[in-house]
């Protein structure tokens, strides 16, 4: 028989203090993350410029996706958005592929016990270094290197030392500018990806590599048969984060420019959103369009993320699960029939 005191102690729950202590985070999260998200969603149903604040239903979405809406220039808005979307994918693809290849190669080299590369620590630091420079500084650096006229480094070099006649307009012609952005993004991020892949490779049981070695596998066989399959979880993570980052690419494309205006050839969806949102007071900005474009890119990201997960799911595991279920069913069915006859 428990005493009154014991009963009271039982009824005391310390859970509420736990909730109190974690409450600040959730409050801040709600106000700075959830509410802006919801507000963006609300804004996407409201009007632009003179029409700001008015409820317009799905107008912004039809404008962006179908080119039909209240704005007289709806078709042009659709065209600009589609161009921005296309450029986003071009820029992302063009920096992701070389970046992952380079990082993978370096990660394998740096983790290979047989190679015994000297100065690993030094190279790791140097390769990670670009990532700690702010994008604004990087953009300023590259604008000064690849500026359109002979005053800038690369053109001046080509014109004075290699006898080129006219400067190459790296920044204002579409493809040179895009390739430049791809290069900068690769240069900025390959160190980061490399570190991540290295940690993935180092997480693989070394005895597997030894076993492969003893069995006489060469290094490419080890890479394709051992490293890559076991690296898959990290690869999926890298792919998904890089995709989200790529679809939101903003700083370098926005800042790599010659004048006061961002370059149209580098306009990504994020730049489209920002340009529509940040055009001065509400009655000259397009809050609605910016909100709708944000929601669309959110949906695209969600879909692509799901596809990546689906494609990279562990097929063996799923097949095994199915087998197990089938076996279970068979067993049950047989049990119903009257048990196993051995």
């Amino acid at each position, binding site marked *: 028989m428990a005493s009154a005191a014991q009963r009271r102690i039982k009824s005391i729950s310390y859970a509420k203090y736990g909730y109190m*202590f974690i409450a600040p985070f959730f409050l801040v999260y709600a106000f700075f993350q959830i509410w802006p998200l919801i507000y963006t969603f609300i804004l996407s149903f409201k009007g632009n410029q003179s029409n700001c604040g008015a409820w317009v239903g799905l107008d912004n979405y039809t404008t962006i996706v179908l080119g039909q809406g209240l704005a007289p220039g709806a078709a042009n808005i659709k065209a600009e958005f589609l161009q921005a979307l296309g450029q986003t994918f071009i820029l992302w693809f063009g920096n992701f592929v070389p970046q992952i290849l380079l990082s993978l190669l370096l990660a394998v080299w740096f983790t290979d016990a047989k190679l015994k590369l000297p100065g690993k620590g030094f190279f790791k630091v140097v390769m990670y270094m670009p990532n700690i420079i702010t994008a604004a500084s990087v953009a300023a650096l590259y604008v000064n290197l690849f500026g359109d006229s002979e005053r800038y480094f690369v053109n001046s070099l080509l014109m004075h030392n290699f006898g080129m006649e006219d400067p190459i307009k790296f920044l204002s012609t579409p493809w040179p500018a895009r390739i430049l952005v791809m290069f900068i993004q690769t240069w900025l991020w390959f160190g980061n990806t490399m570190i991540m892949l290295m940690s993935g490779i180092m997480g693989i049981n070394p005895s597997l590599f030894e076993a492969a070695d003893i069995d006489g596998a060469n290094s490419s066989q080890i890479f394709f048969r051992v490293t890559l399959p076991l690296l898959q979880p990290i690869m999926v993570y890298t792919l998904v984060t890089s995709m989200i980052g790529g679809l939101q690419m903003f700083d370098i494309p926005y800042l790599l420019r010659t004048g006061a*205006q961002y370059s149209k050839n580098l306009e990504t969806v994020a730049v489209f959103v920002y340009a529509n949102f940040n055009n*001065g007071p509400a009655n000259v900005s397009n809050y609605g369009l910016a909100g709708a474009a944000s929601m669309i890119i959110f949906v695209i990201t969600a879909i692509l993320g799901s596809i990546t997960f689906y494609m990279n799911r562990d097929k063996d595991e799923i097949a095994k699960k199915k087998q197990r279920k089938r076996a279970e069913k068979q067993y049950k069915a047989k049990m119903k029939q009257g048990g196993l006859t051995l």
Partner: protein
Amino acid sequence: MSKLTRTLALLAVLAMSATAFTACNGGSESSNDSSSATESSADESSADESSADESSADESSDEESSGEETPSVDLTDDDPTLTIVCWNNNDLGPMMDMYGNENVKWEQSGTDGTSASTEYATFLGSGKDIDLFVAEAGWILNYITDEYALPVSELGLTKDDYKDAYQYTVDVATNENGDLMGCSWQAAAGGWAYNTDIAKEQLGIETPEDMQAAVADWDKFEETAGKLKDATGGDVYMTCSLGGMWQCYSTAIDSAWVEDGVINTATARDFAEMAKKYVDNGYVNPAIAQWDGDWFNYGVDGKCLGYFFSTWCLTQGAQLEGNCGTEGNWNIVVGPQEYFWGGSWLCVAKTINTKATAADFIRYFTVNKDTMKEYALSSGDFVNNKVAMAEIVEEKSNSNPLLGGQDQFAVLTEVADGINMSDSISKYDQSLKDSFLNTLKDEIESKDVDTVIADFVADATSKNTDLSAPEA
């Protein structure tokens, strides 16, 4: 003990959530501002009455310094510091030096006039202590609204104070209710500034009069550009940027960008045709936009004959000095057409709490003839007072060392008289101008004029959901 822990935890939570709430408030409040405006101004005026005794002493001294009639409005400083927002201190620096009050300071928003046009929205809505803000002609209409500004009558200034001012500065800053919302200290008449050494060596032009004759209209301007190209083999451009030519070409014609919600492309098309000729012939480099790195350097490098400069480019430390050097080998003439470029207005921010000093500062630079004259002579800015400017020109007391001693005021007073922009400005102007010049820069070299105009309209209508394209 447990009570103490509980109380502490609760306190921590409250403190954290309180910070979260206050941080959020800044944004949401701006939308309420317009509704609570009347209340707060009422509050302020009642507060003013209670402290009227203190302020009367202040005002008598204000009166002396400004030499104008004291308005019936009670003006007090609730906060000693007068904060003025601008995108640079090219003008405000010398103004604050001359005004000599340590309590006047400036804050930066935006890096140039164009970026300020968008950044002000955030900055002015941030709840900072802002008393006055500077707005430029291209986008002043976006900010002299109830959301951001108060009429200058709040500071006791009326249109009568500006009878000697250039009329357009009053017209531009008057809103649809007839309230004056901003006061300009300058009249931004533009001219054609050129490098006298290049003119002499390459074209044999010795005096400003000869130069004016050589660029008297656009035909002559083109002819001279051709001569310059022949003489230098294309090493020296006639002018640095198409943007500068556009400024001269467009404002002289006084055509509105927007008519009944439709973009007017007539002037833009005419200009694009002219620009095409210039670019094809190599008279101007289309890749350079105003305010580009190269735009700043071509003058000093001797790679262009001249710039289209407005009065505010000619002040100390401004573009004439930066782009063209301090050797005094530049002169200014009227150029192919009389035009204007820019011009800045001091507007009263909603959050003003330094009314007495603000009123005095504005009077000092936009109303008081004597101080304005002094400012014109010390800074080289073309002040917004016809009488003061006429006196300076008559006395021949101004000479600009950057222009080799030439008096730019004498050249530009007539231009300033003729400025008219009241019916042609709209809140879309800055955006349309940016759109047009950007398209021109990217495409004029490789595409025909029809495509350039079509692309410009496509860009402009996609950025401005209010506007429609002209019918083909």
